[in-house]
């Protein structure tokens, strides 16, 4: 087990290095001189030169990368060009907003979609199954931003049940935050339902064909016991991987949802910074999400042996 852990941790390392290299190369390809950009339009050439050497921009590229990577490892992601704020606290602050919504949405989607997928598998090819599969296919085909806009139109503007824009943190006012988050969370749940339900269905069907399920039935166990005690664990393991992937990719795709519902989260910060050409912030957001993506996948792999008894490190 310990060996498996170490090995898995070790394989995540090159990924992180290559990802950081990619972000570095991307950000170095920006048209314009970063030093001149930091100082603004009124800077003297002498000042720019001093800034260049202070930032290490006059050294060879590999050295520049090492300096940059060293700073990143110490949590120094630079300062925002627009506001002068340090980037790390800024993105962590915004990340809290996004993370709350995404976690709630993925948890709800799992709670709804996994039983739905298993039910469809158990009723394979009957009306229930066809209904669930059709709903799942539809859910995979609707773009999240459009569904969000339709929600705003329907529940916000026509029925007037829910506030159209705005955001409060859960810590400050729980009920207000809940009403504001209802539509964004519902949108994400409906969008992610499809993939999870289909995965749960497919792996349940696969497991249900195996001999040990037939054996469990032959022993005279009730259908409920067969499903929950024997089929669920093995069927859930592949779905678990998918949920990890969805959690991670939602963090990247949340920019779209946050734009629709004007939520001040990490995704909106990324988009606003791209528009404002605030590259230190863009870079910080990219690094944070990529790091989380790797970390979540790592975590999913590490939990896997606990879920699937067949994978024993």
């Amino acid at each position: 087990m310990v060996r498996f852990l170490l090995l898995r941790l070790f394989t995540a390392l090159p990924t992180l290095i290559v990802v950081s290299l990619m972000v570095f190369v991307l950000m170095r390809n920006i048209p314009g001189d970063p030093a001149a950009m930091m100082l603004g339009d009124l800077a003297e050439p002498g000042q720019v030169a001093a800034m260049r050497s202070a930032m290490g921009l006059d050294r060879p590229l590999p050295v520049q990368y090492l300096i940059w990577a060293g700073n990143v490892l110490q949590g120094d992601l630079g300062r925002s060009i627009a506001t002068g704020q340090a980037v790390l606290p800024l993105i962590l602050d915004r990340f809290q907003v996004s993370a709350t919504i995404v976690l709630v949405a993925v948890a709800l989607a799992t709670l709804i979609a996994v039983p739905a997928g298993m039910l469809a598998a158990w009723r394979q090819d009957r009306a229930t199954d066809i209904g669930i599969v059709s709903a799942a296919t539809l859910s995979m085909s609707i773009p999240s931003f459009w569904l969000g806009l339709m929600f705003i139109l329907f529940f916000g503007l026509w029925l007037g049940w829910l506030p159209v824009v705005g955001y409060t943190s859960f810590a400050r006012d729980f009920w207000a935050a809940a009403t504001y988050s209802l539509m964004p969370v519902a949108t994400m749940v409906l969008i992610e339902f499809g993939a999870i339900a289909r995965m749960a269905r497919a792996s349940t069907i696969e497991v249900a064909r195996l001999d040990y399920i037939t054996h469990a039935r032959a022993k005279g166990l009730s259908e409920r016991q067969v499903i929950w005690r024997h089929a669920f664990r093995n069927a859930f393991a592949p779905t678990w991987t998918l949920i990890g992937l969805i959690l991670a990719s939602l963090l990247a795709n949340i920019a779209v949802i946050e734009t629709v519902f004007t939520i001040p989260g990490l995704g909106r910060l990324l988009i606003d910074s791209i528009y404002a050409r605030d590259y230190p912030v863009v870079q910080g957001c990219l690094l944070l999400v990529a790091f989380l993506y790797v970390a979540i996948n790592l975590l999913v792999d590490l939990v896997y042996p606990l879920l699937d008894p067949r994978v024993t490190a």
Partner: protein
Amino acid sequence: MIAQTFRSLRALRINALLGLGIVLLVLMVAALAPWISPMDPLQINLRARLAPPQEGFPLGADEFGRDVLSRLIAGARTSVTIALITVCVAVVLGSFIGVIAGYRRGWTDRLLMIVNDSMLAFPGLLLALGIMAVFGASRNGIIVALGLAYSPVVVRVVRGSVMSIREREYIEASRVIGNSEWVTMLRHVLPNCLAPVLMVATMMFGWVILAESALSFLGLGVPPPAPSWGNMLNTARPHIAQAPQLILFPGLCITLTLLGVNMLGDAVRDWMDPKMEGMA
């Protein structure tokens, strides 16, 4: 049991045909856009600003009085063109790297896969956003960004099939008769990976349509005034209360297209892998 299997098979056929029908319809509209469009999609008519559906504007007019139907048709052409080229870029690039990695193995393979897995560790849309941030919103930018972002998936698929194909006798035969490594790879290994690549390409067409519309919705995709379904939704957003039809129709177009692609994709997968039939 037999009746059930038969029923599910028939449902599958119907789904496949329906999916194929939708995809063909979208492709045809895209191909014929300049000829079937009732009006010029860029023609501004301020008197018809935000007009509801009426005579002359079958689906209404947008915030500049441009005909929505004509813009949807032109948008289909934009989205489909971008998606087709992007899928080609991803497939060519991905197959090239995948064949080399799978055929050479050893250190070449290991190095390529480290880079590839790191690209996979970067969510597609995020990588595209990063690239668009550097190069600015443009048509070609989207193609490069999404092509790069989705090629690692093709690399994985191609490498996997090459690994199994390279051990077959006919590959050995090709080597024995003195064909060079490249000829063997391109003439004999690559064509045999086409089936799984076709399957991925079908699904990818849908991903690209979705990603492009998301980028355009964020204002980082197809730059206005050229219409795309995503940027139509973006520019309609401030007018959601006065002209909800401007939100409704572009979204329906994206959803319908993706539904077609997903149904067709499922059918292609079932057809290629009969073991999976009816699984998902």
